């Protein structure tokens, strides 16, 4: 009950302060600007990517008559999907290629990173709702709460409060409730306003579920900062010392830690250079069937085995077209090799990611950033989910073409062609992105750690308040 009274008092005194009015006004303007700036990000990009996907398919369907294997080289393009919540948190979107070329024999890298079309200034951040909630909102809490206990101590009120029999736990709960209510009075309208972005066509029930969890994540994160603010304010003898210390903590957690940890992770688990990656890849590719080089060692070996198996002496006596067969065998080997190296690279990313999560103790910002990106579909996992689906499709499409070559064309008949009707009947790329359940599963550890941060900082707050000095 006393905690409620304290909370009400805290709320009233903060609301009355010009500092609150000024900070709330600035933050609201920035949030509104961020929503305005990001409002059409999804709609515009999604439209362009959907249009590009339709055009790419039309190119495939209407290509000139050609041999199935020539069509495999002609290839097609698929495009990174843009998710409705990407307007809220762009995550790594600008740093991953948006176009993937699919052709026989090769697993290409996605091309055209948006950041490459911008200047170096774009590396200094973008004003998005996630930026306002993750970076600026904690400052709002600090500015309002730094004197929460320190000022009471300076004015002598703290001694009176404690002398009146107020228990330290009650003081902590009251102050955190009060500060929490102030934060909610702004965060909730922000989150409702942010939700308007989901009114865009294409957003479904799952996106609302994701947004609900993202919002919860941000609220827990802000709760962590409320606890931290109270702890430091209780420690500091003077309000301006509390302010300076809190600002130091904010800078360390929100600005320094993300960059420092990412750099540290990269040096601890380095990714290979282009040359090293390609060298290893090409070496592995050499140790297998090359569909385009029948004289290669492994191709010769395969030929001998196949002839023996079918009891014939020449490839043109086989019951199928040897060209299609060897192309497919080569494709299987190439796919295996490309996948092997991609998996090794992803394992390095995962190690870096683990380090990032393990350094959660340093900063709850790392956790909210990670979970927000995952839920928004702008993280590494979602991007690689797309790449994996595209690769699966490439293998299926090229397999379909090789199969046609093997079963419906004669050996050596490279002039034989397929028409538009055949290409239009080929498999289509249909991709919807990871389901909510999968996203929730991978977001859970970061969310759980964030909640752990909230609980631990709360317990620490209780501990510190138990030892609070009235003077």
């Amino acid at each position, binding site marked *: 009950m006393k905690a409620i009274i304290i909370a009400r008092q805290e709320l009233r005194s903060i609301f009355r302060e010009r500092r609150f009015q000024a900070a709330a006004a600035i933050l609201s303007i*920035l949030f509104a600007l*961020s929503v305005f*700036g990001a409002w059409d990000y999804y709609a515009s*990009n999604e439209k*362009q990517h959907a249009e*590009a996907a339709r*055009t*790419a398919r039309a*190119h495939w369907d209407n290509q000139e008559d050609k041999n199935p294997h020539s069509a495999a080289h002609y290839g097609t393009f698929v*495009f*990174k999907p843009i998710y409705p919540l990407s307007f809220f948190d762009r*995550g790594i979107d600008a*740093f991953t290629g*948006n*176009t993937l*070329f699919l052709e026989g024999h090769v697993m290409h890298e996605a*091309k*055209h*990173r*948006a950041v*490459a*079309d*911008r*200047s*170096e*200034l774009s590396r*200094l*951040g*973008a*004003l998005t709702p996630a*930026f306002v909630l993750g970076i*600026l909102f904690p400052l709002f809490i600090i500015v309002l709460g730094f004197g929460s206990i320190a000022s009471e101590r300076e004015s002598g009120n703290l001694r009176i409060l404690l002398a009146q029999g107020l228990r330290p736990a009650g003081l902590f709960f009251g102050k955190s409730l009060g500060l929490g209510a102030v934060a909610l009075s702004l965060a909730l309208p922000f989150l409702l306003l942010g939700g308007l972005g989901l009114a865009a066509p294409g957003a479904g029930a799952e996106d609302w579920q994701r947004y609900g969890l993202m919002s919860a994540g941000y609220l827990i994160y802000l709760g962590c900062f409320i606890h931290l603010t109270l702890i430091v304010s209780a420690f500091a003898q003077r309000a*301006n010392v509390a*302010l*300076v210390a809190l600002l130091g903590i904010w*800078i360390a957690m929100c*600005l*320094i830690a993300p*960059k420092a940890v*990412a*750099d540290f*992770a*990269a040096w601890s688990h*380095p*990714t*290979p*250079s*282009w*040359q*090293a*990656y*390609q*060298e290893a890849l090409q070496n592995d590719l050499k140790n297998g069937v090359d569909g385009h080089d029948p004289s290669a060692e492994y191709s010769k070996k395969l030929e001998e085995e196949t002839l023996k198996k079918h009891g014939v002496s020449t490839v043109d006596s086989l019951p199928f077209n040897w060209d299609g067969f060897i192309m497919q065998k080569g494709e299987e080997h190439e796919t295996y090799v490309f996948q092997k190296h991609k998996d090794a*690279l992803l394992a*390095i990313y995962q190690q*870096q*990611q683990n380090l*990032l999560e393990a350094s959660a103790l340093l900063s709850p910002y790392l956790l909210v950033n990670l979970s927000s990106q995952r839920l928004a579909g702008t*993280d*590494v996992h979602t991007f690689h989910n797309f790449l994996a689906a595209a690769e699966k499709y490439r293998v299926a499409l090229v397999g379909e073409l090789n199969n046609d070559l093997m079963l419906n064309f004669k050996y050596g008949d490279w002039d034989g062609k397929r028409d538009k009707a055949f290409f239009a009947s080929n498999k289509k790329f249909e991709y919807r992105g990871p389901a909510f359940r999968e996203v929730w599963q991978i977001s859970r550890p970061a969310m759980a750690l964030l909640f752990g941060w909230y609980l631990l900082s709360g317990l620490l707050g209780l501990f510190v308040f138990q030892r609070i000095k009235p003077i």
Partner: protein
Amino acid sequence: MFLLQLQYEWKHLSRNGAAWLLLLFLGGAMVFGAYNGRQRAARQKQAVQALKTAQDEKFAALEAEADSIVKGLKKMEQWWLDPTNPLTVGLLRKGGGTLVIEPAPGQALAVGMSDLQPEAYAMLFGGGAARGSSDYDNPARLALGAFDLAFVIVYLLPLFVIALTYNLLSAEREQGTLALLLSQPVQGRRIFVSKMLARFVVLSLMATLLFVPSAIWAGIGAGLTAQATGATLLYGFFWFLMALAVNMLQQNSAFNALACIGAWLLLVVVMPALVNMLAEKVHPVPSRAGYENAMRTADVEFEKIKPAILDTFYDANPALERKPDDAKSPRDWWLEELYLLDIRKAHVADIKAMYEDKSQSHADFARKLTVLSPALVLHDYLTGLAGTNRDAQLATQEVLESKAQTWLDWFAAKYAADAKLQAADYAAIRSMLKPVQPKQSEGNSNGLLWPVIYLTLMALPLILGRRRQMMAVI
């Protein structure tokens, strides 16, 4: 008088535990930034060296094989593997030359766009292709940005200056020592100016002593370090004047701290994000998703006009016989393709230009907006100095494209003449493969103009309001 003040400020700060803590923090950040710069430079040097070695080995092997073929010691059945065939060696998929790009000399100072810059440029028949380790970098790391010296200077140095200046006058007033100081038989203005200058000299000395060794250790040359130090001190002076201007408002230290941090937040954290948002709104850059489709559509159109273009080719080369497609030898086909290359390039030039123009308009507009914050002006200056900004990237790209054209023309001429590559040709090939030095951008757009304007703006309240404010303080 000034020396006495200087001595006092030095003693005052050297006995201040918080100042030492801040110094330690800034020093640690500088060392970490410099370490990162060293690591990046070492990694890039290693990657570049690996590319050079691989290329040297490849061409040495090709040359030896070509020599054996020319001397009749070896036969090569498949033309696409023949090292005496200019087309195979110079332009086809498993051939081609690679221009290695040396790392920018100042990338340890400011990473800028260098973490996305390729280390090499492959010159192939279909055009150039970038080869970069950033293809395999974790995009999450790229998105978080680099912890480089520029980050320490642009973001953290102002905090250091603010922390040691925000209560320069307010603390004296709060402790009652300001009135005492002004009651001395020395002109108040002189005390004020000396105190300011002395504090700035001490801060500058600290910043320089931290920055210069870090920059040198990071591998940035002395010239660049000197220029960067100058810019750093100018930037630090801006924040010093800003903190003094806040002091002149005669509020308490907590207000001063909040006001200074508010200014830092606005100019260093919010303004860059705002500028990027504005640039995106005013000059949106289309997604490149449509780019490849547009190129493919152009290709389809080109195939339709190709027979007419080839008429010109055969008219100009009456010695060549025009054959139906199914009767063409690979050589017939490649001769046509080599002729068509430039025309094809011109055919898609509009598409490329459209994307590049939009991107350039966006970048130009964003750069114009840098005047809104000294942090942006400094960032722009440092990336320009380091040779890691967009301009430097485009200038290097221009060199690469020009060298690739020379390469293409050389091999096309050899192929057209039906020449066989020999030892002398391989020497010429090697000379075309010299590593490319990254280009510096041509000066910084803002130069010294904006820093001077900022400093004047900041100094105005001090100059105009000094006498009145000083009197009010007493």
